[in-house]
């Protein structure tokens, strides 16, 4: 019996890292947006920064989703 431990190990590692990274990024994006709302209410310059950061996070997540669709199609 040949068990492909290497493949199992890489599935484990990749799933763990990608999931945590994506969830982390997306959460940062959400937090960034909610910060931006409160910051712009006070009229501070940090609102722009928070919003840019949030959109960057969302863009990375969107890229990951696109890559997922690419994996499904190809």
């Amino acid at each position, binding site marked *: 019996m040949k068990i492909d431990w290497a493949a199992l190990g890489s599935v484990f590692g990749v799933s763990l890292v990608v999931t945590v990274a994506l*969830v982390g990024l997306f959460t940062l994006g959400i*937090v960034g947006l909610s910060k931006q709302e409160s910051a712009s209410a006070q009229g501070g310059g940090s609102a722009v920064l928070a919003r840019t950061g949030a959109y960057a996070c969302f863009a990375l997540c969107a890229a990951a989703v696109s890559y997922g669709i690419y994996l499904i199609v190809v």
Partner: protein
Amino acid sequence: MEHITLLLAIVIVTALVFDFTNGFHDTANAMATTISTGALKPKTAVTMSAVLNLVGAFLSVEVAKTISGGLVNESGITVEVIFAALVGAILWNLLTWLIGLPSSSSHALFGGLIGATLMSVGASGVNGDVVVTKVLLPAIAAPLVAGLAALLATRLTYKLAGKADEKATAKGYRAGQIASAGLVSLAHGTNDAQKTMGVITLALVTGNVIAPGSNPPMWVIVSAGVAIALGTYLGGWRIIRTMGKGLTDLRPPQGFAAQTSAATVILASSHLGFSLSTTQSCSGAVMGAGLGRKGGVVRWSTATRMFVAWGLTLPAAGLVAAAAEFLTGQGTWGIVAVGVLLVGGSAFIWALSRRKPVDHTNVTDDEIGEPAGVVTTAMAAISVPPTAGALAAEDFKTTIPAPAGSSAEPASPAAV
């Protein structure tokens, strides 16, 4: 087309029915968390999942080369074996749906193929090694991988968003969750609709209708895609309920973490060469997310029943398929009898389900979460405990020669 015999036609219809139960059974994987956290309305969720399943069926043209992944020696396979395997898989899928437990449709099909092959050519037709590496090991690995990833992701997201207003972030989490759920649906359509296409194509090749190695005809692709989408749209609400509410209580951040973990594990596993069951990954992710929140609990009694169902999937579907294969070996009347039993058994399970229907109107009702006895009694009334479930499956097997009406008799006490 003109060479299609009656048996072949029956097998094709049965394969489409299996495809339908597959969609129906697996809606929960993509949409249970989305529905229970309120990210999408139940009907919207299943509609979206159905459309993506249909799209997924057309996305990839690489049809599953082997339907059993090397579990059985496919060179000796006959149309009768395929038919018997499908009967076993369908009945097990319906039974687990009745008791509301998520279980792998692929494993049910594997079990059916193994049982039918054992009956028709004996133990030499089954590769025992492959059973361990493709079914047993992944069944243990899938929930662990997905669960651990979801647990860590849930912890992280709560830590990062700890200070933010929960109301403001819930909308974002829901959007993220819908995206992950969409990916799971799409992947499901591509993988599982193709499995049915593979089964029908294999049946057509075995029946000498099309040449070996040819691609499935267009009508096979269309009908398989439509069958799985239809099943998904109808929605296995009982399983959605168990996964979204029964295993643990999910809040938007947890639902998002669980669904993202499931989508990642499914895609990673199918592209790194170690296939993991979608159902088992999703269930594991839900439990992991449940444990990840402070104060979150996993209802281990429900989880245990689910694990037992996973363990029984292969042998139970195999037993039914072996009995069906035995009958089909008796000649035309045997094939007719199996057909009648399949229809009768399915109708009986459906009739039982009507006693306590679960549908889109009550799928997210809170009663499962109450510690009160009302729920337990209600659950006990609709659900057969796993061991009794196995008995019921055995009953189907032992009473197979009898007409469908009497096969109902021995099973009903188990359900009360």
